[in-house]
């Protein structure tokens, strides 16, 4: 490998964390996955207009819908926190940046897991 950094820079170990490509790629991968999921979800939601509590629960609890909903919310939140990370990186600095990125990721994990548990509870009856 051709390393053009000075010995001091190399010793400090600063520079790219080499996570950028992975972040970029996962953002695109989740984007592609979300195309059919979001179209399916939008159509379903429109069809559910005016549906009451029992109908909505029966819909969420059917096996195929459970799988599709968990995928939509899980991949959607993952894509969202990747995007929000870039937003924080662009507009904030220092400690605030770190705090907001960590907060965003924790929030996505919390709501994502909460939603998955809720969907399973409706479908599997708890």
């Amino acid at each position, binding site marked *: 490998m051709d390393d053009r950094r000075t010995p001091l820079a190399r010793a400090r170990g600063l520079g790219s964390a080499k996570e950028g490509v992975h972040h970029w790629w996962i953002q695109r991968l989740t984007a592609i996955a979300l195309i059919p999921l979001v179209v399916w979800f*939008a159509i379903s939601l429109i069809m559910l207009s005016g549906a009451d*509590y029992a109908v909505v629960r029966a819909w*969420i609890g059917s096996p195929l819908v459970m799988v599709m909903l968990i995928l939509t*919310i899980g991949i*959607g939140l993952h894509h969202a926190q990747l*995007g929000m990370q870039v937003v924080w990186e662009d507009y904030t600095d220092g400690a605030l940046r770190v705090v907001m990125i960590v907060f965003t990721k924790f929030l996505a994990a919390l*709501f994502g897991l909460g939603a998955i548990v*809720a969907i399973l509870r*409706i479908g599997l009856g708890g």
Partner: protein
Amino acid sequence: MSVANRPTHRPLSPHLQVYRLPMLAILSILHRATGIALSVGALYLAIWVICASASPQTYAAFQGFNGSIVGRFVLGGWLFSMFFHLCNGIRHLFWDAGYGFELKDADRSGWIVVIVSGIATVLSWIVGLALS
């Protein structure tokens, strides 16, 4: 050149208060804005299924908010954000693959995104209101 002889009409960089942003720039800003809105919307979606799993009363309270004026605006904005971010996201994926970079193509795909997401939003509302 002395200060006195300097030409007076020198080009200025775009001044945001008087400069009309090109359509491409507006769409770029809108993509990020709708992305942020949808991030909050994803949490809202999670709250929806959590309320549905909790109890009829909790779900009724959630639906009560959706039915209010504020709720209607939130849902309407959410739906438009979703369609716009979806269409413009597909446009971005084409760019990522190396297609559509010519100004003429980017302009055309931009207008397609605006028209398709606008029609999809209006159509969803018409069908949704007809069903409810």
